[in-house]
């Protein structure tokens, strides 16, 4: 093992000892950083799940075509033929007004209402399934509306689009929050390192006097910032994970009656590592600025 590696190993060990030697201060710092990171992280986790819901829904986009009440059998056949020729349409399903009424009758709450009706108020309808994207279907919309005897065209992707817009908005909000709190993390580290430099003022002064290089004096503070940032990230992951487990318990109650399997999903290992690296880097940055600012003040006289 060469001298350089050994110095780094020694610094790392002494950093660990320093953090462990003052558990309360370490715990407080790590908690502050952890909570600060947990806010945008939790928001990001929710958004990702929302986005994946939106993706699943758009995976099978549908358009419902409601016909005018006066449309006859010939009109229906003509429309069906036209629909089948449209590009990007994978399947065309005709639902007659009688079928629709039967369907409604089967659902519990509607049976009574329908029994009270004198005539069938429902229109004939086509359901189109697109092979491609929701966007391709949307392009068809004006063409579909122009068909004769078509009263109303309803894109199922409309709400998905709204959801996507909402997710995009949320993403911006999370990004702003993350940026602000990243500055917060740098500031917290800056201050911690400043205090640490003050506590070690004598040691730094003596070290300078007896031949320590600047790099040697700075190194432990960089490590301290780095390790503190990474520990904060771990705390944030733990906080978000715990919150997710709690939320999932409520989500199960909410989705079970609908037969949905939806649960909030957590980050993958790679995302977690990226967060650790990012927080460690911010910690280092805070330490770097603090050390650059405060270490020059300790010049032995």
């Amino acid at each position, binding site marked *: 093992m060469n*001298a350089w590696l050994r110095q780094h190993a020694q610094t790392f060990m002494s950093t660990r000892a320093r953090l462990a030697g003052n558990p309360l201060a370490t715990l407080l710092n790590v908690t502050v950083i952890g909570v600060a990171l947990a806010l945008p992280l939790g928001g990001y986790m929710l958004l990702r799940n929302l986005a994946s819901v939106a993706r699943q829904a758009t995976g099978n986009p549908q358009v419902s075509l409601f016909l005018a009440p006066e449309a006859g059998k010939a009109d229906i056949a003509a429309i069906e033929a036209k629909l089948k020729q449209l590009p990007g349409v994978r399947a065309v399903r005709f639902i007659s007004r009688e079928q629709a009424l039967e369907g409604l009758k089967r659902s519990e709450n509607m049976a009574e209402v329908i029994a009270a009706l004198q005539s069938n108020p429902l229109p004939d309808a086509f359901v189109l399934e697109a092979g491609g994207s929701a966007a391709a279907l949307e392009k068809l919309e004006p063409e579909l509306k122009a068909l004769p005897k078509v009263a109303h065209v309803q894109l199922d992707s409309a709400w998905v689009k709204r959801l996507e817009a909402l997710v995009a908005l949320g993403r911006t909000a999370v990004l702003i929050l993350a940026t602000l709190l990243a500055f917060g993390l740098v500031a917290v580290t800056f201050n911690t390192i400043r205090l640490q430099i003050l506590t070690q003022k004598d*040691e730094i002064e003596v*070290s300078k006097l*007896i*031949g320590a290089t600047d790099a040697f004096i700075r190194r432990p503070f960089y490590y301290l910032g780095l390790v503190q940032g990474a520990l904060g990230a771990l705390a944030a992951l733990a906080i978000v994970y715990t919150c997710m487990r709690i939320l999932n318990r409520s989500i199960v109650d909410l989705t079970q009656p609908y037969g949905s399997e939806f649960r909030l999903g957590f980050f993958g290992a790679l995302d977690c590592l990226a967060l650790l690296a990012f927080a460690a880097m911010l910690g280092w940055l805070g330490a770097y600025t603090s050390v650059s600012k405060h270490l020059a003040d300790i010049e032995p006289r």
Partner: protein
Amino acid sequence: MISFSQVRKSYRGGHEALAELSFSIDAGELVFITGRSGAGKSTLLKLIPAIERPTSGTVLVNGQNIGSMRRPAIPYLRRNLGLIFQDQKLLYDRSVFDNVVLPLAFTGQAHREAARRARAALDKVGLLARERANPVTLSGGEQQRLCIARAVVNRPGILLADEPTASLDSASAAEVMEMFRSFNQVGVTVLIATHDEALIERLNARVLTLKQGRLEA
């Protein structure tokens, strides 16, 4: 080994600590710097490890010009100097042993080798039995010996001591002086700033007397 030529040091505000100081010290010499308080003894000693820089003139240490030395080079200069400070500068948050081993941490030595050399230095000043103690629990004489152990652990070629006996009783002072003499006898250049005339007479060495920043003939 150490040479001052036409060295002037004035502080901001116009106070002139040293004026036109010229002398040189050969390797292996034992030299006392004496004079009243404020005569410039401490300033002279601070110029050698580049704690202060000369306002004009040249200070050469081992052939290196201190006045023009770049900051990153200073630590390497200091590693070849053993410094004993007037205010001791011991660290009271760690043991006697950890105080002595500190200078070896910078040089990236293996733990075992560093520990061996620190114990050798403590043994030389008679503090090996106290290695686990906190410096606060040591007597004045012992603290001064600890400073000496820290200064010599890197085996420097030059030892600089600023008032090393100032706060000691005469017996401890004599002990400390004896240590300096024994380091000098194995070839270390020793510079001691002191106003303790009795000690200077006992050691019979070269004396530089400062008066208002100048050498007194």
